[in-house]
């Protein structure tokens, strides 16, 4: 399969800085792709630095390994090693600057090769699969809210009102850097989407499908999602990376 990738990040309508960071790369034949998205936190400067350090480290470590004919298992190992390095770099930067002490970042990554993708994430940035007009979230948020939904303490309708709705249980730079890994098969026509919580917070998931199905390319699909989020007054930074298969 041949992949097409596009991505955009926007500051949103309220925030004064964009702490999200995105990047992606494809091999020369566009048959293998690496997509990364990070959502930083820990103050104005800290959030930007943490997401940038994580993104740069992952791209620097993993992009050279694209199309090296590796197995999914060895790719997962490479991703984990890169995440460990990113975590060490964030810790080192925190040690230099006391005002960055609370910085950290989420990470969501997809490494797409052949007819499958390996996924890795820490925090609440998500990966979705759009397959046959059906949208499926492939990642589980590392949040207090997710834990409480699963143990039955709260219900979906309580989520917008609970005071700890933004509290992560895990993040790069703030906890053990071990990611949660997943693997997903891909078919021609599938879309794989990475996003920060700015998108999920601004735009109902059921609106994504019609926006994406009307788009004639990954570029216009990404632009449509960002534009719709901003029209809804996106309070947080909004970021999307989208991959199509054909």
């Amino acid at each position: 399969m041949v992949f097409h990738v596009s991505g955009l990040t926007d500051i949103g309508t309220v925030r004064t800085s964009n702490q999200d960071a995105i990047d992606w790369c494809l091999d020369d034949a566009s048959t293998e792709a690496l997509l990364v998205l990070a959502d930083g936190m820990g103050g104005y400067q800290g959030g930007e630095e943490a997401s940038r350090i994580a993104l740069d480290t992952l791209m620097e470590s993993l992009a050279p390994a694209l199309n090296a004919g590796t197995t999914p298992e060895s790719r997962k190992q490479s991703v984990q090693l890169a995440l460990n390095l990113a975590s060490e770099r964030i810790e080192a930067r925190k040690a230099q600057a006391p005002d960055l002490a609370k910085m950290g970042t989420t990470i969501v990554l997809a490494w797409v090769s052949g007819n499958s993708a390996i996924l890795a994430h820490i925090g609440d940035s998500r990966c979705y699969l759009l397959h046959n007009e059906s949208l499926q979230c492939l990642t589980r948020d590392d949040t207090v809210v997710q834990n409480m939904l699963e143990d039955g303490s709260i219900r979906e309708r309580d989520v917008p009102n609970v005071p700890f709705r933004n509290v992560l249980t895990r993040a790069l730079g703030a906890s053990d850097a071990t990611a949660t890994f997943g693997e997903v098969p891909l078919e021609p026509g599938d879309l794989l989407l990475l996003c920060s919580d700015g998108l999920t917070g601004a735009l109902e998931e059921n609106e994504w499908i019609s926006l994406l199905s009307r788009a004639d390319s990954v570029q216009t699909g990404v632009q449509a999602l960002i534009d719709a989020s901003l029209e809804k007054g996106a309070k947080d930074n909004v970021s999307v990376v989208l991959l199509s298969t054909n």
Partner: protein
Amino acid sequence: MASLSQLVDSVVVTTFEIDKPEVRLGRRTNNDIRIDEISVSGQHAVIECVPNAYLEGTMDYYITDKGSTNGTFVNDLRITERQRLNSNDRVRIGWNEFRFVDEDENAMEKTAYILD
């Protein structure tokens, strides 16, 4: 500390502290918060105060209707199962209006942060 303030015409007339793991509300005298009014059942509702399993030092408050005749409402919705209370929720016991306030919740940071 959390409290439940009874309102009459939007004015606070009495404030009850939620200072026990389980606070019972109803018309009978054996309730922690006794509401001697005709729309209130003998054992009407209970508020539980439970430590949050994932956030150290944070308490969660849940209200459950005990099969009352005229119902327990949170923000005008009749509850049919255990419901978490958020600060400033309006609670109605039969025809009696209350406001739930959790002072610790108001102090909680609203922007994203990480649990260390």
